[in-house]
C-alpha cells in the first residue's frame, strides 16, 4: 500500500493499493425535491405493474396479457395479409376485415381484465403492508402519491394498448403488396389509434384505481371490477333492447365496456364491430365524448379526494 506522508519514502510501485471507505457517509450533494419523489413513485408503479424487480410470479400476469393482445393483432394482420395475397390488392378492405378502428373493441375485455387484475396492485399492497406510511413522511403528499401511481398505470396501460396496434399497423403495411401505398392511404390510423389508446387507458385506469382505493386486498378489487364490467354489459344490452327509443339509448350508455369504445368510434369516424348494435351509437359525438369525460373525471375526483388527506 502506498503511504503518502511527509518524511516517508514511497515503497515500490508493485505494492501500491487503494483504501476505500465503504462505511456510511454524510451526503452534501443536491436534493431534487418533490419532483424526484413523484418520479420515484411513478417508476416504482411501472415496476410493480410489469413485475420488474419482483419474482417470476409477479411477471406472469402482465406479460401474459401483453402477449395475448399482441397475438390477436398478429393474427388480424396475418389474415388481412393472406386476403391481400389471395384475393388481390384491396381484398381485405372489400371483405371488411377488422382493422385499427375495431381493435380496441375486440381487445376491450382483455384490456379491462388487465386493468382489473394489475392496477389494484399499485395501491392495495402499499396500504396492506403499511409502506404508504413511509412514503407520506417523505417530501410527498397524498395527492402526489396517488397522481404518480395513476400516471404510472396509465402509461403502462397506454403502451399495452398501443403495442398490438403498432404490430397490426406494421403487419398490414407489410402484408400489402405495395406497403408504401398502404402507408399513404392509412397513415391517419396511426394518430387515431394513439389517441383512442390514451382514452381507453385513462378510463380503465381511473375506474380500477378508484375501486382499489376502497380495499387493501387486490383480489377483492379485481373481482369487483370484473363483476362490474361483466354484469353491466349484458344487463344494459338487454334492458336497452327491452325499453327501446331514447330511454334505451341512455340505458345503453351505462354499458361501462362501451364508454371508451364510443370515443374510439368518434376518433375513427366510424362505428366499430363492438358498438354497431349499441343504441347509444346514434347519439351525437359530443354527448358520447362528454359521457366519457364524466365517467373518467368524477371517479378521478373521488380517488383524489380519498388520498388528499391521507396520513399514516
Amino acid at each position, binding site marked *: 500500500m502506498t503511504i503518502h506522508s511527509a518524511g516517508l519514502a514511497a515503497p515500490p510501485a508493485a505494492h501500491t493499493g487503494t483504501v476505500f471507505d465503504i462505511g*456510511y457517509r454524510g451526503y452534501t450533494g443536491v*436534493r431534487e425535491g418533490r419532483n424526484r*419523489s413523484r418520479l*420515484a413513485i411513478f417508476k*416504482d408503479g411501472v415496476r410493480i405493474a410489469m413485475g420488474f424487480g*419482483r*419474482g417470476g410470479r409477479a411477471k406472469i400476469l402482465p406479460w401474459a396479457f401483453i402477449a395475448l393482445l399482441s397475438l390477436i393483432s398478429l393474427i388480424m394482420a396475418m389474415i388481412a395479409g393472406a386476403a391481400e395475397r389471395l384475393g388481390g390488392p384491396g381484398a381485405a378492405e372489400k371483405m371488411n376485415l377488422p382493422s385499427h378502428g375495431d381493435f380496441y373493441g375486440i381487445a376491450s375485455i382483455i384490456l379491462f381484465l388487465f386493468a382489473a387484475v394489475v392496477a389494484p396492485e399499485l395501491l392495495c399492497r*402499499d396500504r396492506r403492508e*403499511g409502506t404508504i406510511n413511509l412514503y407520506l413522511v417523505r417530501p*410527498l403528499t397524498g395527492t402526489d402519491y396517488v397522481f404518480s401511481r395513476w400516471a404510472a398505470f396509465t402509461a403502462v396501460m397506454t403502451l399495452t394498448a398501443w403495442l398490438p396496434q403498432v404490430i397490426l399497423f406494421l403487419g398490414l403495411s407489410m402484408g400489402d403488396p405495395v406497403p408504401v401505398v398502404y402507408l399513404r392511404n392509412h397513415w391517419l390510423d396511426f394518430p387515431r389509434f394513439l389517441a383512442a389508446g390514451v382514452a381507453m387507458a385513462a378510463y380503465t385506469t381511473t375506474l380500477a384505481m378508484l375501486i382499489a382505493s376502497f380495499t387493501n386486498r387486490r383480489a377483492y378489487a379485481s373481482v369487483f371490477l370484473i363483476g362490474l364490467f361483466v354484469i353491466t354489459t349484458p344487463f344494459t344490452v338487454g334492458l336497452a333492447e327491452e325499453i327501446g327509443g331514447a330511454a334505451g339509448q341512455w340505458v345503453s350508455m351505462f354499458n361501462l365496456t362501451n364508454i371508451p369504445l364510443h370515443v374510439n368510434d368518434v376518433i375513427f369516424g366510424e362505428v366499430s364491430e363492438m358498438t354497431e348494435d349499441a343504441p347509444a351509437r346514434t347519439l351525437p359525438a359530443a354527448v358520447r365524448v362528454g359521457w366519457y369525460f364524466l365517467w373518467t373525471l368524477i371517479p378521478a375526483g373521488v380517488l383524489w379526494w380519498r388520498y388528499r388527506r391521507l396520513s399514516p
Partner: protein
Amino acid sequence: MPSGPALLEVEHLTKEYRNVVALNDISFSIFDGVTGILGENGAGKSTAIKILLGLVRPTSGSAMVLGENASESIGVRARLGYMPEHDCLPSQVSAAEFLTHMAELSGLPPSVARTRAADTLRHTGLFEERYRAIGGYSTGMKQRVKLGQALVHDPAFVFLDEPTAGLDPLGREEMLDLVRKTHQEFGISVLLSSHLMADVERTCDRIIVLQGGRLVHAGDVGQFTKETETVFIEVDTNRERLVAALELRGVGVSADGGGLTIEGPDESVYDHIRDALVESQAPLRRMAPRRRALAELFERDASASPDGRIA
C-alpha cells in the same frame, strides 16, 4: 449542556381529537444528541412525532423542526428520517431496491441513491443479505431495514418509534448500539420513542416523559435515572427491627411484597443500610438496585409542571 440552536421546538402544543386530548399544552426544545421520549401507550408520543413530522396539524401551539414550521413545510421532510413501530416494509422487493427507492423518494438522484443504499445496508449489518426479498427476513433484520430506510438519505434528524419492538435481548442490544452509533459517528440527531426506561437510559443523553398527553419530566437522563432509582432489600428475619433502624437514620423505606424498597439511594444510603443491618441483626438474603416501574414514576410525577426545556 446542549450546544447550538434547537433542532426541534415545541411551544404550548395541544392536540385534541373530538373529546380526547392527546397532547395538552406541552412545550420543550430538543438539541443535537439522542433524546428519548418516554411514556406508556396513549401518552401522546406518537401524536407528538406525527405533529413534528408535519403529518397532523396541532389544535393549538406550534412545532418548529430544523427551523421550519412542521405543518407548513413539506420540503423539510427531505432532511428528516422516520422509523415507525409497526410493519411497513414491502415483502416482495429486496432491501437494496427498497432503500434505493426510499432515497430517491427523499430527493436523491438515482445513482447516488443506489450507492447510499449499499452504504446504509453495510452500516445496518444487512449488506450480505441485501438482494434477498424482505418478506423472508427475520424480525431483527426487518427492524434494521426500517432503520436503514430512515437513514439512507442522510437526514439531519431521525425519529425512531419503538426501534427495539419485537427483538430478542441480543437483537435489542445491537439495535441500541446502532442508534447510539448513528449519532456518535454520523452526527444524526435522534428522537427515540419508547416505553422501556432501560432502552432510553442506555441510549439517550436527554429525556422527555409524557403521561396522558402532559409533559411530566424533561431533562438529563443521568439526573432522571438518579431520581428514579431504588434499592430492594430482602432479609430472613428481624424485618421490623431493620425498618426501625433505617428510619432512625432518616432513610425512607417502604414495604414491597416480602422485601423493602429504599428511595433514591446515594452513597451515604448504602452506609446507613450496612449500619442498620448490623444493628438490627437482620440476615441479608438479597440486596439489588431496582428502578420504579413507569406507572409508579407517572403517579409520582403527575403533579409536575407541564412546561420543560431539555437542558
